[in-house]
């Protein structure tokens, strides 16, 4: 399993995700956004951070990067693409995933642990969550409020393209368990082919007990044991 983490100016979770991938034996390399070529990889990761300061709209300027066309090609060939936090925002700006991430409803940055229900277990990112489908991960964002209009929401629900929803520790999903105002408590979604996942929580920050949890590990194990 080989991965590439794309580094944009202002990415700041690039090292964290690289550490996590390597911990789970995925052979990773860092790729500078301005490179014209994407090295051969099974998985491409767009890391968290503040690409271009998140100025104008989050993820917007990174979505105009040179490497993006290569990434689109990679996914067309069935390659896996994971966008975490700012990476998710870049995915919606490029149109690789539908919808958009608006400012948190309270207009404040939120950094805290949240519970999530893994709502799609049938994909290469999440299949190991069959062992445990209510998990705890950390969120840290200012614009994590996923917005989709009713038609899109219906499509996402009907086609089972929602990967994670904000919940409580028992898996209840409602307004009280929604930290940022996301439509239908959505924390992460898949494309129709299920080879692209965008998510706001940070699995790479929960990969050992010392870091207040290990629930992120299951995602990297899923990827390593790709179906």
């Amino acid at each position, binding site marked *: 399993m080989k991965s590439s983490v794309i580094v944009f100016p202002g990415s700041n979770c690039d090292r964290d995700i690289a550490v996590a991938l390597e911990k789970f034996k995925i052979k990773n390399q860092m790729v500078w956004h301005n490179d014209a070529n994407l090295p051969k990889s099974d998985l491409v990761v767009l890391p968290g951070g503040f690409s271009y300061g998140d100025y104008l709209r989050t993820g917007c300027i990174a979505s105009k990067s040179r490497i993006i066309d290569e990434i689109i090609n990679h996914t067309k060939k069935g390659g896996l693409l994971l966008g975490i936090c700012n990476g998710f925002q870049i995915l919606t700006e490029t149109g690789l995933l539908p919808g*958009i991430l608006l400012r948190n*409803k*309270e207009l404040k940055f939120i950094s805290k642990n949240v519970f999530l229900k893994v709502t799609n277990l049938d994909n290469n990112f999440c299949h190991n969550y069959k062992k445990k489908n209510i998990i705890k991960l950390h969120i840290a964002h200012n614009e994590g409020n996923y917005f989709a209009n009713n038609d899109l929401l219906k499509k996402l629900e009907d086609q089972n393209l929602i990967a994670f929803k904000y919940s409580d520790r028992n898996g209840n999903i409602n307004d009280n368990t929604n930290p940022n105002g996301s439509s239908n408590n959505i924390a992460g979604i898949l494309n129709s082919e299920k080879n692209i996942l965008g998510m706001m929580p940070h699995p790479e920050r929960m990969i050992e007990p010392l870091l207040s949890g290990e629930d992120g590990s299951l995602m990297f194990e899923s990827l390593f044991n790709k179906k």
Partner: protein
Amino acid sequence: MKISAIVTLKKEVLDPQGKVVNQTLKNMGYKNISDVRQGKYFEIELDEKDPIKCKEIAEQICKKLLSNTVIENYKINIG
């Protein structure tokens, strides 16, 4: 030539910033405010004298960069 653009959220998109400004103004005693929407404003200096060309460029950059037409509208002003 100077051009300017205003980018606003479409009506059906929730505007949390506007909502908070609205509430804050009410708390400050401005009771007769019924709605606030917040948007972005851009002032662009172009090395181009022809207003028609300016308008064209402005349209392009609003579409391609300054707004996300999924959720936003834009309005352009020349000069």
